[in-house]
């Protein structure tokens, strides 16, 4: 037990950043192409070392009775003289409970996923490249969670976006993957532009971007005191800034209607989906909301958005997850739905009674384990059945025993069955919604729980039970050690993280500025109700997809609507394409080539014609020149005469 101030690990926490970066550089520049297997080894070892450092950091940090935020290290990156009295931007490491928690999550899951990928991508021509890019993601994500200020957060925010782009498009010869990567990047970029505006706004108004200062009550008051008047309407700068900052989270955590990129992102390799698009990166939006929680709470506007969007997305995505047949898409919609849970939990929290906040962080924690594990299992299933389609699997529980067990744990955890981890975190979220006095949000959450249990059970039953529908493709199904080991290791926290960490989260994962939590009386019936809903969902799924299930195309129009993802993608496509290409770009190009260039060419044309007209005088006929000279002389004479 070490004191955080003197801890070796905390002083050297830059290693969590430097090691993956070094792996990225070494693999990207040297090993990736020439020695892919060495590259994989380097990447795994670097991540493992980073995970060890992160765990040591966590040990030392949580050793204190009330872990206080601390700046572990920082070095200057860019100073901004004459801006709000001179501002220094740096790259630093700001440790507070949620940052340390995320640090551990990222490094541990990243190590396991790296290990898994070494098996999953064996023989892929891009094997070496993958082990350059994935450490790059780990590096960027680490930088994001330890950011002490908004600008560093934004820097790494964009870098994880880049990593996501590059990894979704990992198989860049596959058009669908390329499209998906572009879509993901542009949609998040769209949200990030507003995020950047928000950062600029806050930096200009407050003269600082440090979270500690931005979250201070004085900052909120200063922002609230300056109204923005625009065209007769006025709103507080605080509300505006909060919404703009929240926009970043909106895109990154794929809240409705910006959620469309996440299911498509499943085009990337499964390990990527596992770490980036379920466990860590998509949680960055939730993390940002939690980071700025005091500011958002003071503003109200952003938390209201978080609450409504979160609840809606949770339900909306759960509905879609119920009818998807692509194994990874089911999980993707499930991720969306769970992100909605985390988001609305933050939305219902308030600084005095931060139950929602702690519940949300708790869910981030548990969800990361079981969801990344589920994705890894999905990867094994895909390898085994050579298809992504759940309807083409079935009966795999004998062939893939470890996977089967892990998936069962994961599904039950996600469904919220006691005593698995999901039960505790989901229960905490539902309870917080109820105690915060949001019955409708609570009802939505409950309904989502029911649906969650249903689709996870469906997932499990379709994949592992019944007769094999793989038509012999799964003849060689087996579990690779490199792939089974991480799954097995992840199954432990998926099962146990709940009861193990519940108390600690509720008491210590508090919003900045709060040291002790006074928990309102926990409604004792909430866990029972949640459990009941989950069991009901599972039972319905068992009845529907149990023995004797025969897949058939959905006929029910409501199901078809959900199956077609409520046509949001198509709407986006039409709207964005129409707006950008038809409404703006095409007229702009027309204007440029016709009006601007046209007027230039027209002026050139006029000059040419003038020149041609003058050419008659420059025709090389000397006698005309002479005559012209004479005429000029005579004219001068006449003029002189007239002047007299």
């Amino acid at each position, binding site marked *: 037990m070490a004191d955080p101030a003197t801890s070796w690990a905390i002083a050297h926490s830059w290693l969590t950043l430097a090691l993956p970066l070094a792996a990225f550089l070494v693999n990207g520049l040297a090993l990736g192409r020439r020695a892919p297997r060495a590259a994989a080894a380097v990447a795994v070892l670097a991540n493992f070392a980073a995970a060890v450092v992160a765990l040591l950091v966590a040990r030392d940090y949580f050793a204190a009775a009330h872990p206080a935020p601390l700046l572990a290290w920082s070095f200057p990156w860019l100073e901004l003289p004459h801006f709000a009295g001179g501002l220094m931007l740096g790259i630093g490491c700001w440790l507070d409970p949620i940052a340390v928690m995320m640090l551990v999550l990222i490094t541990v899951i990243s190590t396991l996923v790296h290990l898994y990928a070494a098996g999953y991508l064996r023989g892929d021509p891009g094997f070496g490249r993958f082990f350059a890019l994935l450490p790059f993601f780990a590096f960027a994500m680490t930088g994001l969670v330890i950011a002490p200020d908004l600008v560093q957060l934004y820097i790494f925010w964009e870098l994880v976006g880049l990593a996501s782009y590059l990894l979704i498009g990992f198989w860049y010869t596959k058009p669908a993957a390329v499209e998906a990567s572009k879509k993901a990047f542009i949609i998040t970029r769209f949200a990030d532009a507003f995020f950047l505006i928000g950062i600029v706004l806050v930096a200009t108004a407050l003269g600082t971007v440090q979270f500690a200062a931005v979250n201070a009550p004085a900052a909120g008051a200063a922002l609230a005191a300056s109204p923005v008047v625009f065209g007769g309407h006025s709103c507080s700068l605080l509300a505006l800034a909060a919404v703009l900052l929240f926009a970043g989270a909106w895109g990154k955590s794929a809240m409705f209607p910006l959620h469309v990129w996440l299911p498509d992102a499943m085009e990337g390799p499964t390990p990527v989906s596992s770490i980036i698009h379920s466990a860590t990166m998509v949680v960055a939006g939730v993390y940002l909301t939690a980071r700025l929680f005091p500011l958002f709470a003071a503003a109200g506007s952003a938390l209201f958005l978080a609450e409504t969007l979160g609840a809606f997305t949770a339900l909306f995505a759960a509905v879609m997850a119920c009818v998807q047949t692509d194994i990874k898409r089911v999980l993707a919609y499930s991720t969306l739905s769970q992100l909605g849970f985390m988001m609305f939990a933050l939305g219902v929290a308030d600084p005095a009674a931060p139950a929602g906040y702690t519940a949300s962080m708790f869910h981030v924690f548990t969800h990361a384990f079981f969801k990344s594990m589920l994705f890894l299992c999905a990867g094994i299933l895909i390898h085994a059945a050579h298809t992504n389609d759940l309807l083409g699997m079935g009966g795999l529980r004998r062939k893939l025993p470890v996977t089967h067990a892990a998936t069962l744990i994961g599904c039950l955890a996600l469904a919220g069955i006691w005593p698995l981890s999901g039960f505790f975190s989901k229960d905490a979220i539902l309870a917080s919604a109820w105690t915060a006095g949001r019955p409708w949000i609570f009802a939505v959450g409950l309904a989502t729980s029911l649906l969650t249990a249903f689709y996870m059970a469906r997932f499990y039953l379709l994949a592992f039970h019944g007769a094999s529908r793989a038509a012999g493709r799964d003849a060689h199904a087996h579990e690779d050690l490199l792939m089974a080991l991480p799954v097995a290791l992840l199954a432990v926290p998926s099962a146990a993280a709940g009861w193990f960490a519940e108390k600690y989260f509720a008491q210590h994962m508090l919003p900045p500025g709060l040291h002790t939590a006074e928990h309102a009386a926990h409604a004792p019936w909430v866990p029972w109700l949640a459990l009941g809903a989950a069991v009901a969902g599972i039972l319905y799924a068992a009845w529907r997809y149990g023995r004797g299930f025969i897949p058939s195309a959905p006929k029910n129009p409501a199901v078809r609507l959900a199956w077609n993802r409520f046509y949001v993608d198509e709407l986006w496509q039409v709207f964005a394409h129409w707006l950008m290409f038809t409404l703006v770009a095409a007229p702009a190009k027309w204007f440029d080539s016709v009006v601007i260039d046209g007027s230039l060419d027209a002026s050139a044309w006029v000059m040419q014609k003038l020149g041609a007209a003058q050419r008659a005088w420059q025709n090389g006929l000397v006698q005309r020149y002479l*005559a012209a000279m*004479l005429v000029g*002389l*005579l004219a001068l*004479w006449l003029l002189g005469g007239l002047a007299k």
Partner: protein
Amino acid sequence: MNITDVLFYADAALILGSAVLAVSLRHVLHAALALMMALFSTAGLFLLLHAEFAALVQVLVYIGGVVIFIVYTILLTAHLGEEVPRSHPAKQLGALAGALLFCALLLAVLWAGRAWEVPAAHAADAALAQAGGVKGIGRRLLSAAPDGFLVPFEIVSLLLLAALVGAISIARKPAGDPGEGPK
């Protein structure tokens, strides 16, 4: 009207007449001969005005050199102008009108400046004769004094040299020239 006047008017008539011929004869050789005539009579005029050296140069250089050169050129280019068609009548009329107007302009200027026709202090004819003489001119031409013409003289000699070289290089037959005459 003394004998000088008579001689002057006769000479003037000769100059004018041959000038008109020189510009109106279509045949180039004839025109050149008329020009020669005009220059000759001008040399006579110079004699009347006591510029004997100028007259001499006129005859020797101008007529003996330049006009003969013109004639040579005419003969060299062989076709003696037949192939050049007559100008359009309108152009001829225009040229006449232009020339007349220009003449009117010159005369009007003369008229406007008639004030110079005040009797000047005439230098003695002897002095004039000496001034037009070779000796005076030679002194002036080669004098480095402020009113001397040494520098212009040297420049002119340079110019002549340059013209000589230029004329030779321009008129020189290019290597491999297939032949002569217009197409």
